[in-house]
Structures are given as structure tokens and as C-alpha cells.
């Protein structure tokens, strides 16, 4: 490993900014977050980034390293610097910039609030009896650490800016983890199709490639959700049965108006006060 490397870090805020380069001393096992901390402690204490656990468990230190969404705490420097010892670090592109490597991810928290919680039938036996085989797949989705890297890479959100129409991969697997919960009794498909916009996903699988928890977001989450929605709304035989008043969902209807997304403001909310 090189003894010193160069970190080219985006510095700036909503009004603009530029990349600035810092020399960094390396040590065995160094990750990009260590390099950022070294810059903060020794060269510029104003360099802003988020971090918490430094063990890839909390999902705070998301950034784009050489243009790829990644957790800084899990990215070993020797895997990223080029022949000239250079690494480029920039903030998530999909979310509005606050400062340096920190973006305003509050949109995600608003989406989370629009997903109805686990809803159990009033007469369900308690405590629950659930078999491991029946919860394996939702446990996979519940590994999500909310780093929002999948939201950052999602074309619908990143390139087409459709935050008004699609909740993004993180919340597809959140809905999947509820919909596939053995005790959940809510009919989630209308909400999934309309407010959450599952149809917008074009199954590029970029989201599951960047997931630091290796969750099969598209394969195990979004595709089965799309199939369930298709069954409900696009299957001609089901449609016919419905016209005859048959084949209704046995689950509780969702009070949809309670969870319809309020319109997203054109510009993201500025941090207050």
C-alpha cells in the first residue's frame, strides 16, 4: 500500500462548491472514513460528513467513492486509489446537498411515514407462532440499515427525479417485509401500485448491486411485489371474478386516504431553523 494517498473531496453547500485535494497518511486496514477523519482532525475541522458505528451497521456514512455509492466505513482505501494514489469522494447525488458530504435525506423519512405499520387481525393468537422458514425472506429485508445507497443509485429517483411517484427500492423491501409477514392482515396492493409506485421500477437491479447488506432487493423483494400487483390488477380471470363479486382479498382493506402521499414540494425542504 502507498504510504500517502490523495483524497479529492467535494467541498461546498447548496450554493455551489468544488473538489479539494488533501494528502493522507495510510495505515493497514485504513478505510475512506479514516481518511476523512484524519483530514478533519489535522487539516480542516469544518469538513462535514455523517458517521456513527464505523462498522457497516448503521448506514450513516454513505457517499460516492470514485462515483460509486458506498459506505465510507467499509471501503478500504487500497481498493479505491488509482495509479496516482487518488480517490475521489463526493456526496450522494440523488439528495439535495447540505454541506460537503452531507445530504438532506429527509424525503426518505417522509416516505417511511406513509407506509402503514404491521396490522394484525384482532383475533390472531398471541404470542405469535411463526416458523423460521416463513420468516426467512422477511428477515432478509429487515437487514436493511437505511444507508439509502439503493435510493441514490435508483434511476427513477436519480436520473428521472420521480420522488413524487416512486418510493424507491428501500421502501419496496420495507413494504415487502410487511406484506410477506405471516401475521400481517392488511391489503397493501392498491397502496403499492398507486402511492408507492412499484410499477416505476424497471428491474435494472442496480439497487441490489450497491446494497452493503447484500439484500436481493429486486429478485426477492420488488419482483414478487410486482407479481402480486399484476395478479390483483392485470389478471383477466381475476378481473372477471371481481366483476362477478368473487375473489375479493381476505385481508383488511387499507384506509388508503390516510396513507396517500401528500404532494412533494418542487424544491426540497431546507433544514430549519
Amino acid at each position, binding site marked *: 500500500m502507498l504510504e500517502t494517498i490523495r483524497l479529492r473531496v467535494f467541498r461546498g*453547500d447548496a450554493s455551489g462548491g468544488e473538489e479539494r485535494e488533501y494528502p493522507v497518511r495510510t*495505515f*493497514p*486496514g*485504513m*478505510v475512506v472514513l*479514516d481518511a476523512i477523519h484524519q483530514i*478533519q*482532525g*489535522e487539516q*480542516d*475541522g*469544518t*469538513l*462535514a*460528513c*455523517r*458517521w*456513527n*458505528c*464505523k*462498522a*457497516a*451497521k*448503521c*448506514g*450513516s456514512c454513505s457517499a460516492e467513492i470514485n462515483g460509486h455509492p458506498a459506505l465510507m466505513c*467499509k471501503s*478500504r482505501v487500497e481498493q479505491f486509489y488509482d495509479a496516482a494514489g487518488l480517490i475521489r469522494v463526493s456526496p450522494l447525488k440523488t439528495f439535495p446537498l*447540505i*454541506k*460537503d458530504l*452531507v445530504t438532506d435525506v*429527509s424525503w426518505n*423519512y417522509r416516505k417511511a*411515514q406513509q407506509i*402503514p*405499520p*404491521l396490522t*394484525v387481525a384482532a383475533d390472531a393468537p398471541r*404470542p*405469535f*407462532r*411463526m*416458523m*423460521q422458514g416463513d*420468516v426467512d425472506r*422477511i*428477515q432478509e429485508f*429487515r*437487514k*436493511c*440499515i*437505511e444507508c439509502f445507497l439503493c435510493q441514490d443509485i435508483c434511476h427513477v429517483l436519480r436520473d428521472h427525479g420521480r420522488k413524487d411517484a416512486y418510493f424507491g427500492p428501500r421502501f419496496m423491501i420495507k413494504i415487502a*417485509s*410487511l406484506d410477506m*409477514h405471516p401475521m400481517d392482515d392488511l391489503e397493501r396492493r392498491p397502496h403499492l401500485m398507486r402511492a408507492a409506485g412499484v410499477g416505476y421500477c424497471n428491474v435494472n437491479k442496480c439497487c441490489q448491486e450497491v446494497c452493503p447488506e447484500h439484500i436481493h432487493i429486486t429478485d426477492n423483494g420488488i419482483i414478487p411485489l410486482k407479481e402480486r400487483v399484476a395478479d390483483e390488477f392485470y389478471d383477466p380471470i381475476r378481473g372477471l371474478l371481481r366483476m362477478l363479486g368473487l375473489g375479493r382479498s381476505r385481508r383488511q382493506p387499507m384506509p388508503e386516504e390516510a396513507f396517500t402521499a401528500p404532494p412533494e414540494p418542487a424544491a426540497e425542504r431546507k*433544514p*430549519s*431553523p
Partner: protein
Amino acid sequence: MEPFETVERDVLVIGAGGAGLRATIAVREAGLSCAVVCKSLLGKAHTVMAEGGAAAALGNMGEPDNWRVHFRDTMLGGAYLNNPRIVELFAKEAIERVLELEQYGAVFDRTPEGLISQRPFGGHTYRRLNHVGDRTGLELIRTLQDKAVSLQPDVFMEFTVTRLLKDADRVVGALAYNRQSGGFVAFRAKAVVVATGGWGRMYKYTSNSWESTGDGAAMALEAGAELLDMEMVQFHPTGMLWPPGVRGLLVTEAVRGEGGVLRNSQGERFMFRPEYTPERYRGKYAETEEEGAGWLTDKANFRRPPELLPRDEVSRAIYKEVRAGRGSEHGGIYLDVSHRGADYIRRSLPSMYEQFHALGDIDITRQPMEIYPTIHYTMGGIRVDPDTCSTTLPGLYAAGECAGGLHGANRLGGNSLTDILVFGRRAGEAAAIYASSAMQGALDEGPVSAEMDLLLRPLSATSGENPFHLAAELQEAMQQGAMIERTEAGLTACLEKVLQLRERVEHVQVEGSRAYNPGWNAARDLRFTLRISEVIVRCALARKESRGAQWRSDYPGFDPEWGRKNLVARLEGDTLHVETRPLPSMSPELQSIMEEAR
């Protein structure tokens, strides 16, 4: 005076880890308005780092477990310094709180019968840790986060609270700054719950994040509350050691619960040495490797291996092995679970597998891990009433790691996740009851103005020291003088350094503006870590015995006199007083539970 915004709610909850979120749920369910403030984004608090499980005597594993055994294990693990009433409430209510979590949506690992699966852990007689692989904390915080959000409290993310505000004796709010903008906010509330977690950042090698600077305990102390047993800082036996970039990261106790063994450089399973099993645990642990191996498959007929002694004992043993020259290449000990097979390890310890693979280039299904004790948890904290979590100040409540009394001199693994559920709820309910019959207090602008001046001083200074450098000096001093092995001389030197740093912190200087400025934030955090460090060291000097996490090599062994006393720290002006208090008495019923073990 600097401008500040005012936010008024019935209850203010400071901290959004497990305890703060559970308190928030209780306040909202009582129908009161609630502001919950957190330093990070929601869901990133330290609870997310908990791995092994939440201890509650559900008795799902075919063993005769119940709250009485859990009570006894916790008292024994805490070396009898625990508050018995707190432990009683804890052991009883932990069961209901875990089951309630499942109703909220948590998805625990299952037994073949479809119940919540429980795993063995250090110091717990039976399999008692309700878990989700080795990411139980994530499951717990996400579940509580979703539940709390569904009750629509007002969440203030990335705000740091720096001072509690009082109306005469009563706590009536707090001053905070918005980390994103740097703006000031005065929260006014009829009751305040402190749920700010612990403090590990004053040590160099720690499993704690930047948030663990002891803000809540320091603010409570400065407002006039009392701190209990502050010398009791837990050194988790197994922290990552190599490479340097990951030093101190936690290696969950579940590795040992799932059969992991500790070996020194000579390949010896040193925990079997009789000197490492203290008197009160004699006869309860396997005495041969064969017996320990038998326990893996037959828990009814074999005793557990001594790797599963409580954390204080295992940490001390590792420290002694390394000091005796039997350490690993980088000065630690080997932890090996590879004999359990790759499939089993990847299923039951997935995040450990990933952590070592990605950060340490180690495949734990084939290779041993190198480990060394790391700062992990603080047993001491704000002194509270067992039933209501109220502090000595009216209107102020505390729960979770920032509160003291449950864990005594050493915490058993798994007890913290249920601690935050049981007492988070109790604190929230009690605060809601108090707030229901109270009026908002008066807001005195004097302390608000003084605190804002204090916060702004490093920004207006034209020269001065770098707060990051001071923090590093403090970490070096605490690591040297107040770690596992403590002596009068080492502690005294450490105290001198801390006091010197407390003078130097008055002259720190930072660049830039108030908007998302880590240097500026660090300057205020440093005041909290210094305040708490002084309390830790003074209490460690005062307790002249070895008990639990407090190992005074100049006073080895329990002292029966000290076994009857807690240490309480409080401020008079700016002078810290450390005094002894008799342990709370134990009810006859609880006494009989303790005697059942003899």
C-alpha cells in the same frame, strides 16, 4: 443576545435510541405531545450496534427459566452492587416488553416450535437471549422507530442538546443547537426524559460511536442531579484488534455463545485455569474441554464453558494472559469459532462474518480472530427512582444506559436491550403522568444566553487549541490510567491530566461557520467527556477495592465494607463531591431468591 427559536411540547425526550423511542411511544400513547431530539439521523443511535440479543426469561428453550433466575443472575453478575428493586422490575417486565416488540413487528429467530429462539450468553444460567442472528439491535431500533413514527411525535434529527433549563428546582426544558444550520432552539416541556446513552469516547479503543460523549449524564449532573457508581465502565472482552483501522470494534459475545473458544499464543484454552473463575461462580462452569464441548449439543447434562463467565472476568483474564507474555502477534488473544462449520457460522453470525471478511481480511469460518478488550458500556449513570425513573430533580427522568442502578458493577450481555425497553417505557409513562398535571415552567433567558455564549466562544476565538487534539490527549490519558487495571498512582496521574485539559478546553478555537461543522461540535462534546472523565476517575480513586469492572490491583478482591456502599457524585458549584451511600435494602422475597442459589 443571540436569537433562538422556542419549541413547546408536553414532554421532551432527549435521545432516540431504544430507551428514548420506547419513552416516546409511552408519551404518545398517553395522548401527550412529545418532542424527541437526536444527535444523528433517526435509527442510527447506538442501539443499532447491539448484536447478541435481548435477555428475557421467556423460557422457550425447554429449560426451567423464569424471572427469579434472571434476577439472581443479574445480581450475581453485578457483584451485588445493583439496586434490587430495579433488577426485580427489570427481570419481571422484560418478558412482556419483548413479546410486545413482536406485536410491533420485530421478527426474531424462531425455535422449531415457532416461538422466539433464545441463545446462551455469559452469566445467564439458561438460554435467555432473544435474538435475530447477530443484528438484534438493528431489529429493535427499527421496530421501535417504526412504532414511534406511527404515533407521530415531533422528531428533531441532528440536534444536540447542551444544557437543561430549570425553573427554580424543576427541569422545564433544554437548550439545543441544530447541527445542520447551527441555529439555537430552546425546548420548553413540562417533563424531560434523558435517554442519551453511555460514554465511551474518552477512551482510545472503544466500540462506541462519536455520539457516546455522556451529554445526558453531564447535563443532569450540572443541573443538580446525582450520578451513581460512575467508576463502573465495562470493558468488553472481545474487540477487534487488527488491522489498526478497526481496533476496538465489537466482536459479539454471541460468538462465544455459539461455541467460540479463547486461546493464548500457546494454543491453551486459558479460561479453564481455576484462578480465572471467581469464588461465586465455582462449580457452575465446565472444568474440562470435553465437558465444554458436550454442552454445545446437550445443555441439560453439561455445564457451560468458562468462556461464558461474565464480561469483567473474561476481560481481566485476557489482560493477564497478554501481560504474562502469552498474547497473539498483535498483543491480543485468539477467538476461534471455525469448528462450528461455515454454514452454521454464516447463518448465526452473519454480520461478524461480513465484518471480519470486509474489514480484516479474515475468514472466521476458517481462521481464528485476534481480539482484545474494548470499552463498551457504562454501568453507572444518573441516579433514579426504580419505579418511575425520576431523578432527584422534579420533572427530570432518565432511562437506559445513561441511568444507573440496574447493572451494579458489571452488566450481563443482553441485559441492556431489555433495560431500554423496560425503563424507557416506565420513564415515558411517569413523565407523561407528571406532565399531565403540571404547567409549563418559566423560561429564564439568563442560562440560555450563557449557554449560547459558551457554545460560540471557540468560533470567535482568534487563536487557541484544536479540540480534536485535546480529545486525543484525553483518550490517551484515560486509556493509560483508567482502563482495566487501575492503581492509585495511575488514577492520580490520570486525574491530573483531566483537570489540566479542563483548563485548556477554555481556550479551544475552531474555524468556519455554525453550519454542519464537526470541529465546532467537537469543541462542545469535549466539555462533556472531560466532565464525565473527572467523575469516573474520582470514583475509581474512592472505591478502594476490586469489584466487577473496577479492578484495583493495589486493592485486590472484594471488601465487605465496600460491598455495602454505592458511590454517588454530585456538584456543588463547580466542585465535584463523591460520597458513599448505603446500598438500598432488599425485600425478604428477593433475599429468598438470592438464597435459593446457595
